[in-house]
């Protein structure tokens, strides 16, 4: 079955420290992977994608994600967290018929 797992419901990071939000996936064929962010009372916003090429992809707001095929992971990272990064983050994968399925989300708290 095609799926996305985000093993952490919540991640707390001190401002200025590096952050990682974890994601693993299960999909047949080459994976197309995405990260989205949701701020309170808003819809999701696209952050970045992996389609092919370099395993480290860069996206909006200084975020990047590392694709690891052997571990079927696509973790979101940022070298130095900001309080304004506090939000709900979703990992997603393209599944059959091009539909996009999402993980349950990880709430990121950046502590001042």
């Amino acid at each position: 079955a095609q799926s996305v797992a985000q093993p952490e419901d919540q991640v707390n990071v001190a401002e200025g420290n590096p952050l990682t939000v974890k994601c693993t996936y299960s999909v047949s064929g080459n994976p197309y992977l995405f990260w989205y962010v949701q701020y309170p009372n808003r819809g999701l916003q696209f952050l970045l994608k992996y389609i092919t090429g370099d395993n480290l992809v860069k996206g909006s707001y200084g975020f990047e994600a590392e694709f690891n095929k052997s571990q079927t992971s696509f973790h979101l990272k940022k070298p130095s967290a900001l309080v304004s990064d506090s939000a709900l983050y979703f990992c997603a994968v393209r599944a059959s018929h091009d539909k996009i399925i999402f993980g349950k989300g990880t709430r990121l708290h950046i502590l001042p």
Partner: protein
Amino acid sequence: DARVTQTPRHKVTEMGQEVTMRCQPILGHNTVFWYRQTMMQGLELLAYFRNRAPLDDSGMPKDRFSAEMPDATLATLKIQPSEPRDSAVYFCASGLRRRDSLATNEKLFFGSGTQLSVL
């Protein structure tokens, strides 16, 4: 800026009533997704359209939910009859699938959602 528009933003209704949620995708987009967000289940895919044709509605309870695209500028999601367990935020998202692109649906644009409360 182009954006996906959803109406209403909030809806409170009583159990058994019909609920209709509307979505105006971004002009020129040819894919539309409906998702439901709850604390327990996260973001669930309910239905997916491409060029107005339904491609996947396997995540949608068929007995009470229906999704349509009467034209390219309007997608609707109906619940009849509504139940308290349908209370959630419903999101519409649109995207563009190009035949010559490897990265189909590479970027979805989400509306602000309809927060539904069924009492």
